[in-house]
């Protein structure tokens, strides 16, 4: 399909990474679209968990928030938040965490807290939410993040969620001593992303160092485009994985989901009488 957008490439390729019957903790936005596309195509029995405590959600339209009524109404169960984080996530009952972020570095550390110094930020971002513990406790983590000049950076302003290597952010008062190990070998106990899906393709961590390198390109994207979009000297796998373009079925399903979502959002506002 040559007429699909890069957003559609991202969503379709991300959806393919999810196995049927896996238990997946879903971040809002791009990850939510990808996880529901997987459910509506090759993974009908995937268990989608949103951090509002909705387990096994099967929304007909994409939710705007992680706690829309649509999620509660279609979930197999709705549990209190401490139960979700303690008895499901921390107890190891989640296979995949699917996250977004504002910034990522070469080791897959994520920032969703601040741009600039913590005490005087130029941009205050929303913050951690569930991400640090989702990445820590899920067996595997995927990240979706659009490539902008500020998103794939040499150095994070703040490390909200740990990736494959310790010490990657600007030194703060309590971790300044760790700065020197920024290029340390991959931490075997780490919980960094096993794939990062972005506008031009897919990055995966190198087995030896955990450093994210280009492993696959979408359609007409080039290595030069990928290098230009990433704020560190991007490594490229010896052999790039071919990525099949979105199929007609995948695109039709995704576009149908998005059309239903737009129609639902356009319904008249219901201020309680």
């Amino acid at each position, binding site marked *: 399909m040559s007429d699909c957008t890069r957003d559609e490439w991202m969503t379709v390729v991300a959806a393919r990474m999810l196995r049927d019957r896996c238990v997946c903790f879903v971040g809002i936005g791009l990850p939510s679209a990808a996880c529901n596309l997987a459910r509506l195509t090759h993974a009908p029995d995937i268990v989608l968990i949103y951090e509002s405590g909705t387990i096994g959600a099967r929304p007909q339209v994409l939710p*705007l928030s992680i706690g829309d009524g649509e999620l*509660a109404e279609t979930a197999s169960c709705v549990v209190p*938040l401490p139960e979700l*984080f303690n008895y499901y996530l*921390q107890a190891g009952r989640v296979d995949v965490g699917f996250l977004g972020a504002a910034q990522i570095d070469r080791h897959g550390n994520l920032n969703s807290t601040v741009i600039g110094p913590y005490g005087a930020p130029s941009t205050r971002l929303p913050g*951690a939410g569930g991400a640090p513990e989702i990445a820590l406790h899920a067996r595997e983590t995927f990240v979706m993040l659009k490539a902008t000049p500020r998103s794939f950076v040499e150095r994070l302003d703040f490390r909200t969620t*740990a990736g494959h290597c310790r010490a990657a952010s600007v030194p703060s008062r309590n*971790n300044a001593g760790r700065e020197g190990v920024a290029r340390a070998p991959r931490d075997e106990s780490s919980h960094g992303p096993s794939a990062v899906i972005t506008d031009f393709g897919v990055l995966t961590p190198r087995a030896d160092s955990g450093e994210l390198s280009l492993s696959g390109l979408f359609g007409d994207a080039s290595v030069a485009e990928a290098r230009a979009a990433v704020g560190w000297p991007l490594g490229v796998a010896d052999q790039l994985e071919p990525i099949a373009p979105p199929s007609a079925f995948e695109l039709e399903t995704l576009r149908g989901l998005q059309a239903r979502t737009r129609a639902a959002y356009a319904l008249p506002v219901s201020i309680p009488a």
Partner: protein
Amino acid sequence: MTTPRHCSLTEAIAEFVEDGMCVALEGFTHLIPFAAGHEIIRQRRRDLHLVRMTPDLVYDQMIGMGCARKLSFSWGGNPGVGSLHRLRDAVERGWPQPLQLDEHSHAGMAAAFCAGAARLPFGLLRGYQDNDLAAHNPRIRHVHCPFSGERIAAVPALNPDVTILHAQQADRQGNVAIHGIVGAAREAALAARTLLVTVEEIVDALPPAMNGIVLPWWVVAAVVACPGGAYPSYAQGHYARDNAFYQHWDEIARDRQRFLAWIDRHVLGTTDHRGFLDSLHREAA
């Protein structure tokens, strides 16, 4: 045990919420007590330490109106839309006043509420690992398990002076029923010294609980009938979340003057939540 007061929201906020208190308005996306937040703005409370996992629009409005000196939270955005511009303005530019942050992850806030509800000094979690949150928040520390020696993150209990919830129903005795997404409502309620609840309706008898959350009358200080009290968030079974309002808020809150005019017209310019909803109806017409 004291019987819960049945009173107006104006009376409940006047009696129980004082300047300088630690106040939690909980409800995770669902059942956010907007009416109570607006009444706190109308009564011009100051220097509050606000606690909420997801500050949402309700705290954006309270922070923008200068009600807060401190915020304990774990995710401060407009869900699915973007920033909370009033929260950002307070943190980035100190407008209308500086805001001290006590910042956590969701798992950390949940542990702090659970400890508070159990009247334990701190909550435990496997979390805050290899990230910068603990470096910037001295309230995130670590302890060693006395049995295995494992290093585990600890957060101090959250015990608000007042927690305010919105629920679907209460009965005449003051028992409170909540169903749908419950978030940390039960923990925030039982962690508080005083619990106020606004409800969609007061009924003669509550339906069988079916694992919905019932807070018994003797943990409740006051019950206020307040239909639509969670709008523009929602009350499952009563009305849906107004996603269009959440999207529209982005442009209202982006500009200080536009924000102040909105609050002036719809919150300060009305006497209660009925008046607030009527005012929005008039604007939409």
